[in-house]
């Protein structure tokens, strides 16, 4: 029973962080209508940004760097969106669906190799937020991961508030529901696209910065979290914010439980991602709109 509670709580904490990252992807999908295949690379850049800023400005508390890493990710996302994605919405690209897939994947290829060239292939780890472990009563969990989970929870809450209560959130929702109607009431969908992409990229970077002290960063570290985010958004329903949060927690739990109870522990750990992927393929085949997705057409 203790074992069960312990892996469940780890799964929950990780699930919230996963949800944060998947929310970024959902935000981009619901506004721009594209899947960002470079999402994991924004996660990776967040981790590197926090490592590099911390080693440049020693003495700064690691937690203070997290927002900076998020801003760096958002800035890069903004530039990319304006240069490469905006033309889609100005009808300057034919076959936009394929273009969006390829150009974001191209960005991921570019960023991985850029990091490899600039920083090198060796893992880096920024300083811990709070060294040591925290006793939660049922289990002990590392201070870093607990901090990351708590901050993610706060950010998810803040994001929900922004989307549901503020003007900009209303505008974003309007664009995601009907671009033309939104344009009629004076919402500039092009700037909403930029905001959504920058915010989504920033969220991925924040997730990367939050997890970097727990799992160190390498140039190819983004592959797993990005694939996990695809799993989550498809499971929750593409474009559904509620779906991303539930999906994130479910995947966090599934990974943690399946890895914990797999007959052969070392193999279980290796297959952690594969369990999520299996759910993913099943959802795609059986119920492509996921748990909370809008019905297509």
């Amino acid at each position, binding site marked *: 029973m203790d074992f069960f509670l312990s892996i469940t709580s780890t799964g929950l904490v990780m699930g919230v962080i996963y949800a944060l990252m998947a929310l970024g992807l959902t935000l981009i999908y619901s506004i721009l209508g594209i899947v960002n295949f470079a999402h994991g690379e924004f996660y990776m850049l967040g981790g590197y940004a926090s490592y590099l800023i911390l080693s440049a400005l020693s003495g700064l508390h690691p937690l203070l760097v997290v927002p900076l890493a998020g801003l760096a990710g958002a800035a890069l996302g903004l530039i990319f969106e304006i240069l490469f994605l905006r033309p889609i919405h100005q009808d300057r690209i034919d076959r936009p669906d394929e273009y969006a*897939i390829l*150009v974001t994947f191209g960005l991921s290829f*570019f960023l991985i190799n850029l990091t490899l060239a600039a920083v090198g292939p060796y893992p880096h780890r920024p300083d811990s937020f709070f060294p040591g472990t925290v006793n939660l009563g049922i289990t002990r969990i590392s201070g870093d991961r607990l901090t990351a989970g708590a901050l993610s929870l706060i950010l998810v809450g803040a994001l929900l508030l922004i989307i549901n209560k503020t003007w900009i959130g209303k505008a974003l929702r309007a664009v995601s529901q009907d671009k033309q109607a939104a344009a009629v009431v004076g919402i500039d969908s092009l700037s909403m696209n930029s905001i959504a992409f920058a915010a989504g990229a920033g969220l991925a970077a924040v997730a990367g910065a939050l997890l970097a002290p727990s799992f160190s960063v390498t140039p190819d570290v983004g592959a797993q979290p990005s694939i996990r985010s695809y799993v989550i958004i498809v499971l929750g329903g593409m474009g559904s914010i509620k779906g991303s949060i539930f999906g994130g927690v479910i995947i966090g739990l599934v990974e943690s439980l399946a890895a914990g109870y797999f007959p052969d522990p070392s193999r279980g750990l290796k*297959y952690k991602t*594969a369990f999520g992927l299996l759910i*993913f393929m099943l959802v*795609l085949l059986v119920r492509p709109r996921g748990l909370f997705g809008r019905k297509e057409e």
Partner: protein
Amino acid sequence: MSTKPRLQLNLPALFSKRILQWGAALILLVVALFVPTFVETYRLHVIIIAYFYAILSSSWSLLAGYAGQFSFAHVAFMAIGAYTTGMLGKHFGWPPLVGIVFGVVMAGAVGIAIGALVLRFKPAYLALFTIAFSEILRLLIRGETQLTRGDHGLHLEPLLGADVISRVPYYYIMLAILVGTLLFMHWLVRSRIGLFLRAVREDEQAAAARGVDVVRYKVLAFAITSMIAGLAGAFYGHYVTIISPNMMVLTQMGLVMAMAIIGGVENLIAAALGGILIQVGLEELREFGAWRLVIFGALLMLILRFARNGLLTPLFRLMFGLGPRAELRKDTATVPEESAPVAEGVTADGA
């Protein structure tokens, strides 16, 4: 725009253009045949690997550029071919040639299954599904160490036995596979099947309404290109004699895609040449270290954005005359060059 004047106007032009194209291809082939006489062993190895990538990039361009299925699982099918023959050899002692045949069959069978599953997916879902498939397979190969030796790498018998040290025979075999698959794909694209595939790519519903068996041709395209990838992988395995799950990471897929797109994704020869030139270029520019791939990544994005036809396709058009389409376009000169692939596909003179 009636079809009649087009035929009258351009039959002779079309004819000489054909001759020019085949002539150029023949010259390339002759040069390729003499490569081992003036290239040292290491360079020859680089070129063999370049041919391997050319097979992958051209078959991916058939799947993506002609059939419109932007699959991310192409290198996974390559790995299926390699691991099938590798495991048959390791556990049952089967000879490489039999293993390669089984590798191709296995890649084709899995290709049919995946092709049938992704049939109705929109592009983004297809991309996600194929990424998931590719990653699950990679994790399985990494995890099942007793079967595959995981990250330690699986050893394969050299195709021609341990006595043959020279790379020259391998060079000719890889060249033969490349030329053979290119000819086969070229024939396929020019046949009715190719026409149907392009029709499905442009408008699936319209094609179905016209009586094209959409399901069959989409799955067929997936299966055929998977088999070609499997063949390339199986032979590659018996050439380099050690394979690991790293051969199918997503950045490898990215490299193959970059080759096809930089060459020209809607032209088989351009995609193959893109593969060869980029692989050789990457080796030649070794002194720049990791920055080479950064440049290719940037190039990939810029080409996607500004030159949908890649770098080689427009070059071909320049070299072999503009052909009937371009003369026609003088009347409708407002259409920019990049938005042409629709017309290119249907007039069947695209290559």
